[in-house]
Structures are given as C-alpha cells and as structure tokens.
C-alpha cells in the first residue's frame, strides 16, 4: 500500500471514531492504534492479575466468615476481569503466552499501587474504598472507548466493581465505629494508601505523554489531573463520614473553584515504584512467576488428558 493510500485509510478511520463508531478486531486500523491498545489492555489485565496478590494475603485471616466470603468473591472477580481483558486483547492478534511473557520479564507494566504491602486487615478496607474507587473513576469512561472488545469488557468490569468499593468502605466503617485501636488501624491504612491512590490516576497532564492521542481514540475521556480532582472531591466527604483525617495538611476546600485544593504529590516516589524500586515489586513478580511455573505440570497434564480423550473418541468412531 502506498503512503497516500495509508493516509487516506487513516483519515477514514479517525472519522469513524469521531462519529462514535466502534472499531472491531478485523477492521483495518493503524498499526499504532493496534499497538497502543495491546499495551493499554494488557497493562490493565496484568494489573487485575497482580492486584489479586496483596488481597490474597488476607483471605485466610479475614476476621469473619462474611468478610472472608466477600474478599474471596472480590479476588475472584479480579481474576475474571483479568481474563475478560486478556481475551479482548487477544482479538488484536497477540497470544496469551506473549502477554504473560511480557509481564513475567518486566517488559509490560502493571499498576504501581500493587507494589505496596498489605500489613493490616484495615488495608483490605482502604484498598476497596480508595484503590477500587480510583479504578472506577479511571474505568467508567472506558465503557465508551472506541475499540469494541475493550468497551464490552469494561462494561462488565464496571458493573462488578461497585461491590468492591462498597465492601471496602464497609470494612472501614466497621473499624471506625470500633475500639480506639481499630480506629487507629483504619487511620493508619488511610495514611499509607492515600498518596499512592492519588498517584494511581497517572502522572500530571504536563508529564503525560500519551494523553492527546488517547483522547482522540477515546482511550481517555478526561485528563489525569481532572480524574484526580474528581477522586479527591468525592473521597474527602467520605473520609469525614468515617471520622478519619486525610493525611494532607494542605487539603482544603476552595470556595471560588468549587473543588478541594491539595498538597504536592511525591512524584519521585511514583517513578521509583514504576521503575521497580517499590516495597513489593520483587515479591509480586516472584509470586506471579512461581505460580505460573508451578502450574505448568497441571496445564500440561490437562492438555495431555484432552488429547488422549480426543484420540480415544476418534478410535471408537473408526
């Protein structure tokens, strides 16, 4: 195809997206669109899969059967979300194995937030409330993104995500209405998860390299800074309801702008964690890779069994 023809196709393509038409896997698409989608969808899938690890840490130690059943269901949902997203990603012609390979070798990233440790039960509350809260803000606009399989997967993810946040808030509420020690535990969890949750919404607009293109393709509907502001404005009143203090001395209501002003985010910390120097990066990767490696004999045995059954069926047919 000549450059002119490609340029022409690209214009038709961009116009389709501008008209809110969906792009489906077999449609012609610019190579950059395909690559960007593989990158974003797989990062998203990896985040769901790695995201199971910090919470998995507390399943066996949940304080009641009710909490345990809920946490187990939440972690199972995350596995499901990872699978929806991997399968959406595979429609672009990349294999599951390649995607895992990228995760396991560190070539692909996952959300940095999962590189922080979960040291108390209150962290299950804070993660549901804050981390899932920030995730919902990120994800809801993606239900209308231009790539059909991604949009459909996100509709399903968003439907299920609301239970995650509510169960987290309920854990916090229970602790905050408990003994002083329990309330302190909740405050401590908020102190540790607040800033990483703000970072989760991505670098500031000035530093965000993908924003403009992503807006055009509807991979993004609002900028990182706008999403962050939205998250803060909706979360502060929830913290007040819990009787907890947001760990930011500069946080205050700005009457003129109608939003909360907030303090400086430590972006050095963010980039350190992204680059692999967070408190749990190595552990997360080790746990993930060893789960995959240790499961190999099971996958192989299942495949061998399936082939044997198939061969037997064929033999009987003859």
């Amino acid at each position: 195809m000549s450059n002119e023809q490609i340029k022409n196709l690209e214009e038709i393509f961009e116009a389709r997206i501008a008209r809110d038409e969906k792009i489906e896997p077999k449609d012609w698409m610019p190579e950059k669109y395909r690559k960007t989608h593989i990158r974003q969808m797989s990062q998203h899938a990896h985040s769901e899969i790695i995201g199971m690890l910090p919470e998995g840490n507390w399943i066996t130690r949940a304080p009641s059967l009710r909490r345990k059943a809920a946490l187990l269901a939440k972690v199972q949902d995350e596995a499901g979300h990872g699978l929806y997203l991997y399968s959406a990603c595979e429609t672009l012609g990349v294999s599951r194995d390649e995607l895992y390979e990228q995760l396991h070798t560190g070539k692909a990233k996952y959300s940095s937030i999962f590189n922080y440790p979960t040291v108390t039960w209150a962290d299950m509350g804070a993660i549901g409330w804050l981390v899932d809260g920030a995730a919902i803000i990120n994800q809801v606009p993606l239900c209308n993104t231009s790539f059909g399989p991604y949009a459909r997967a996100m509709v399903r993810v968003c439907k299920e995500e609301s239970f995650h946040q509510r169960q987290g808030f309920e854990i916090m509420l229970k602790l905050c209405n408990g003994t002083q020690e329990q309330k302190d535990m909740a405050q401590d969890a908020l102190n540790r998860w607040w800033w990483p949750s703000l970072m989760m919404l991505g670098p500031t607009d000035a530093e965000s390299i993908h924003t403009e293109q992503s807006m055009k393709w509807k991979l993004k509907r609002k900028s990182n800074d706008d999403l962050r502001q939205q998250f803060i404005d909706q979360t502060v009143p929830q913290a007040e309801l819990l009787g907890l203090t947001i760990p930011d001395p500069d946080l205050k209501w700005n009457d003129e702008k109608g939003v909360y002003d907030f303090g400086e985010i430590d972006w050095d910390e963010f980039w350190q964690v992204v680059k692999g120097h967070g408190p749990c990066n190595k552990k997360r990767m080790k746990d993930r890779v060893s789960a995959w490696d240790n499961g190999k004999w099971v996958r192989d045995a299942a495949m061998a069994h399936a082939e044997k059954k198939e061969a037997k069926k064929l033999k009987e047919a003859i």
Partner: protein
Amino acid sequence: MSKNWPLWEIFVRSKNGLEHRHFGSLHASDAEMALENARDVYTRRSEGVSIWVVESSNITASNPENNGELFEPAQDKVYRHPTFYDLPDEVKHM
C-alpha cells in the same frame, strides 16, 4: 512438552426465551473444561441459564473488507420492506 490450551468462544443464554449471545472467550484444554471455566468467568452473578462453547479456530468470519459486496446489495432492495407499498389510509390492519 508445552502446548498451549486452545481458545474457546463463549455464548450464554441469559434466560429462557432469549438467544445465546457472545460473551467473550477463554482458554481451556477441552470443551468440558471450557464449559466449567465459562461458568466461573462469565456467569458469577447468575448471568445465564445455558452456555455454548465453540473452539475459536472453528469459526469462519466474514472479512470487513468485503462488506461492500456482502451487505450493500440489500440497500437498494427497499421493496423488501412493508413501507415500500402505497396503500390507501382506509385499509386497516395491514
């Protein structure tokens, strides 16, 4: 030996009276496992009463590049629609 589990397309009937609809795909070693995994992946909240699984490699799909010759001929056959026919207003129930 390392052979990857094949990909399966999953179709779910939400309730009796409705058709099976494509829900997504997943990997499984055989059809039986695909059914079991589909139950866990796509119907955790009573989304279905029946599941079909089809190995993806068995699906033949039309190519969007041929959409013109495939689908455009229908556009100039308006006589296939009831509104093509002019009838007097007095005609009822038609």
